[in-house]
Structure formats: structure tokens, C-alpha cells
């Protein structure tokens, strides 16, 4: 009598709660995708059900609008540059903190870690003034540089943790062979660190792709908009044409879903790693 008999009802109850929550999570998203196939009249009658006819008009209208592609292009350029710059600057700094002993290293690291303390929103007004004075308003760089700056603290923490776990013998061996720090960084540390680079990269990519507040203050020409600004403007313009708005939302959901499917591992790793180490 060591084991109690398995209790079926608790298993049933657990599945029941899973399914109930899953329905609550999925319904708004599924209704959004389906709504893109409907007419406004159909939405009025039945926002839940399948469309009477799977009409593609809304989606075609959205997808053939060059502005949509302009938005996605802007977001892509900004996200790509943010990832590359964050990885380069962050990895160099993290390497220095992990590998090189120098006077003031602890102090400088703490200085960078200040970035984890407060959200970007607190300094958004002076940042706006600064970008204006630098002539960076309404330019991609005006979003890229502050995004990199605000992403650095988190990236340095994660990468430094990883670099420190690389075996110290590597450096000793390289040193005997007369290797410099810079060469060691490029030839040994970076090639061994692809998992953490991917994790940080994907995380920064998602944040940049979804960022709203910074583009909102930086961009004022709708050809320079990123897609979150575009979707807000579109909704403002077609506020009652929900069938079009829903199609627009659905189209912009696709990149996030694709990324999720392919990079889920790194997203979750970044999240839990960041959570544990922050």
C-alpha cells in the first residue's frame, strides 16, 4: 500500500482547466484572424463563427498596399541594426568585464547595471530633446541608437555570465602562444558563444520589432513609421471598418508567429536566463 490508487478525477480537472484557459487565450486571436475574412455586416451579426464565404478582399487590399511593406521594411532595418550593434558593443563590453582585470572594472559594471533599474519611459522627454538636437528625429538611427543603449545592460549581464563560464585554460593556452586579448575575443570567445549570442539577439530582435513608445516620439512622417505606429494610424483612420483593421492585425501577427516557431528555444532561454541572472 505504498502508492495510493491513481485518482482519475484530478487528472480530469487539470485538463479541464487547461482547456478552459486555452480557449480564453485563443478565442480573441482566432476571432481576429477569422474577422479578416468577413464583411463588416457579418461581424455585426456573428463575430465568433466561421465566415460564410472565405473572402480574401480585405487581405488582398492590405497586402497590395505599398505602405504596409514600407512599414515592415522600416521595422526590419531598425530591428536588424539594433541586433547587430547590440551584439557587437555588448559582447565587447561583456568580454572585458569577464576576462580582463583592470582598475575600476567593478565600478564600470555597476554603472552599466544602473540600466536595469529604470524603464526607458522615465527619461523619454529629455531623450526626445537630445535626439532633436542631434538631428536624429525622423531617422532610423534615432530609434536604433537609444534602443541599443537601453538594451545593453541586459545584454552585458547575460553575455558576461556566459563568457565567465568558458574554461580559463583556453586563455592560458592562448596566452602562451602569444595571443592578444582582441584576437582571443574574435577567434575563441565569439565562436564558442553562439548560443548566448542567438539568445540575446532574438530577445533584442523581438523587443525592437514590437517597440512602440520610442518610434512614437521619434518618427513623424508616416513613410518612416514602424509597423506598430502604422497599425495604430490605420486603426485610427478606419476605426469602424473592423474587417480591414482585423486583416491588418493578422498580417502583422505573422512575422511574430514565424519567429516564435523557429526561435522559441532562444526566446524562452533569454527569458528564463535573464530572469535568473538579472
Amino acid at each position, binding site marked *: 500500500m505504498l502508492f495510493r490508487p491513481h485518482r482519475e478525477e484530478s487528472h480530469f480537472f487539470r485538463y479541464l482547466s487547461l482547456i478552459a484557459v486555452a480557449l480564453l487565450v485563443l478565442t480573441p486571436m482566432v476571432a481576429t484572424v477569422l474577422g479578416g475574412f468577413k464583411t463588416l455586416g457579418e461581424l455585426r451579426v456573428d463575430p465568433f463563427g466561421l465566415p460564410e464565404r472565405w473572402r480574401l478582399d480585405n487581405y488582398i487590399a492590405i497586402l497590395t498596399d505599398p505602405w504596409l511593406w514600407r512599414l515592415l521594411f522600416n521595422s526590419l532595418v531598425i530591428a536588424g541594426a539594433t541586433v547587430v550593434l547590440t551584439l557587437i558593443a555588448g559582447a565587447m563590453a561583456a568580454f572585458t568585464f569577464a576576462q580582463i582585470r583592470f582598475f575600476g572594472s567593478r565600478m564600470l559594471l555597476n554603472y552599466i547595471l544602473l540600466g536595469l533599474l529604470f524603464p526607458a519611459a522615465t527619461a523619454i522627454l529629455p531623450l526626445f530633446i537630445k535626439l532633436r538636437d542631434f538631428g536624429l528625429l525622423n531617422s532610423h538611427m534615432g530609434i536604433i541608437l537609444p534602443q541599443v543603449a537601453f538594451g545593453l545592460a541586459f545584454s552585458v549581464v547575460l553575455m558576461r555570465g556566459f563568457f565567465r563560464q568558458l574554461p580559463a585554460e583556453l586563455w592560458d593556452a592562448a596566452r602562451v602562444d602569444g595571443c592578444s586579448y582582441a584576437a582571443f575575443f574574435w577567434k575563441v570567445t565569439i565562436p564558442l558563444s553562439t548560443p548566448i549570442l542567438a539568445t540575446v539577439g532574438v530577445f533584442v530582435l523581438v523587443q525592437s520589432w514590437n517597440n512602440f513608445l520610442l518610434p512614437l516620439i521619434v518618427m513623424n512622417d508616416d513613410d518612416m513609421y514602424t509597423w*506598430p505606429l502604422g497599425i495604430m494610424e490605420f486603426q485610427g483612420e478606419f476605426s469602424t471598418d473592423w474587417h480591414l483593421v482585423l486583416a491588418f492585425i493578422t498580417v502583422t501577427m505573422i512575422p511574430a508567429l514565424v519567429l516564435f516557431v523557429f526561435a522559441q528555444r532562444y526566446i524562452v532561454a533569454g527569458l528564463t536566463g535573464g530572469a535568473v541572472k538579472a
Partner: protein
Amino acid sequence: MVDTADSGTPARPGLLASWHRTWRRANQRSAFGERYTTAIVFLIPTVTLFTLFVILPMGEAALYSVYRWNGYGELSTFVGTRNYAFLLNNGAFRSALINTGLIILVSLAIQLPLALWMALILAERIRGAVLFRAIFFLPYILAEVATGLIWKFVYDGRYGLVAGLYGWFGAEPPFLLADRELAIYAVMIVVVWKYFGFHMMIYIAGLQAISHEVVEAARIDGASWWQTAWRIKVPLLAPVIRLSVFFSVLGALQLFDLVWALTRGGPANATHTVVTYLYNFGITRMSIGFGSAVGVVLFIICVVFAFGYRRSLMRHD
């Protein structure tokens, strides 16, 4: 000769030793030099960007906050603490603080228990676990703006899901987001919907790190699923839970996109959070001084919370 005899060391080895010493010192100096050159060169991009776009603006926020300034011309109208005084007596700001507090409360009282409950179920080998995890994590992947608009549709009293739901019962649907009393609760539901999956993932990672022996031992002693979950797993998960509480509060303090997409702080300023208030009254009206004061207050709240929480609750983690 006398010298050599007195010192007792032959001339040649002495010379060699001093050469060696000089050589080694030079070598050390160059290693020292290389260390510092590399450190400086490698840190320049990060320190420059960070100082320029994070630290300086924060300092400037403190400076601007004691002026009345529309962002153009000289900083000349010094107003001392008047921006802060106005802020603390402002009804809309107080309601923004209360809303932020309510969102924190809902996060702690509803979102985290829900996340924990789901994690306890899904951290085990149970059929469909991977699928359910992905589904619950999906809202977190969506952009805040897209989430806000999806829910704006859900709440729409004419075309939305709420309208459909009321339609089934033949009732007149409410316009939730236009209702001063109800709108903030509608916002809270979306917050829970969007972020519980994030906390669930952290909990699952934490649960999977718990040693199997402890759980097995409890099972063998006859503990039920409930008892193992409540008496063994949750206490062992405490450090992770404390961490997720920390994230929850900081997340609520900086909530902006979602609320902006849903309500823009309306109706009649009823759903502002601290950041939507900052945006609405600082940027859109170009009140740089006043908006900076809001930023400074938010900064102080975040820092006090972060340090206080780490000191008191996360001391041992």
C-alpha cells in the same frame, strides 16, 4: 676584483639577472598596457551609448523638472518644486497611480496564481504539455500594440466579441472601454491575458530545476498531487516566485503600449497609467518640464521599489 669578491656574486650572472629583470618588467608593462588598451577600446561603444542615451537623459530629466519649458529656446523659467507640487495634487495623476496600483494588485492576486497553477500542471510529463505551453506563451509574443487592438475589437459594443456574447442573450451590449467605471477593469483583463504566459514559463523553468528525489520521496510517502504541489513544489519555488513578483511590479510600472492602444488613457483620463499620463501630459503638450517631473517620480518609485524589494525579500536569493 675587490668589489666582486665582496659582493660574492660573479659579474656576468648579475648582469644577466638585471637584463632578465628589465626584460620581464618591460614585458609586464606591455601586458599591462595591452590590458588597459583593450579594456578601453572594448568599452568605449557601450559606455558612450549608455551614457549618452540612458544616463544623461535621466540626469537632464531631473534638471528639466524644476523648469517650465516647452522644449524650445532657453531653459529660463525656473519654477522650483512647483511641477512636483502640481503633480501630487493632480487628480488625473493620482488616478494614474491608483490604476497602476490596481494593475499590480491584479497581477499579484490573479495573474501569478493562474500562471503558477498552469505551470504546476504543465511542468510534468502530461500529454499535450508542449502545445498548451506554446498556446499560453503566444500572447506574450504578440506586440503590445497588436494585443491592445485585438482587445479593442473584443470589447467593441457593435462588432466585437462582447457584442456577440450579449447578442446571444438578446441583451444590449455595453461599450466597456467607454465606461469610466469599467474601462480600467477591461484593461486589467488584457494585462492578465497577455502576461501570465511569461510568468508561467519562468515557473516551469524553476519547477524543472527542482530535484526529482524530493518529489518522488513525497509521492512514495503517499502525498497526493495537490499535497506535493502545495507543500513541496511551491515552497521550493519561492525564490522564482519572488522574482516574478518583482518583474510583475516593474512591468506594471512601465505599462504603456497596451493601454495606449486600448484607451489612450480615456475615457476622461480614467485609465491612465503613470507612463500614459507622462506621454499624454508631457509629450503631446510639449510640457518638457512637467513631463520630466513625472519621469523623475516614476524613476524614484522604480528605484525605491527595486532596492527595497531586493533588500527585504530577495536577500537570500
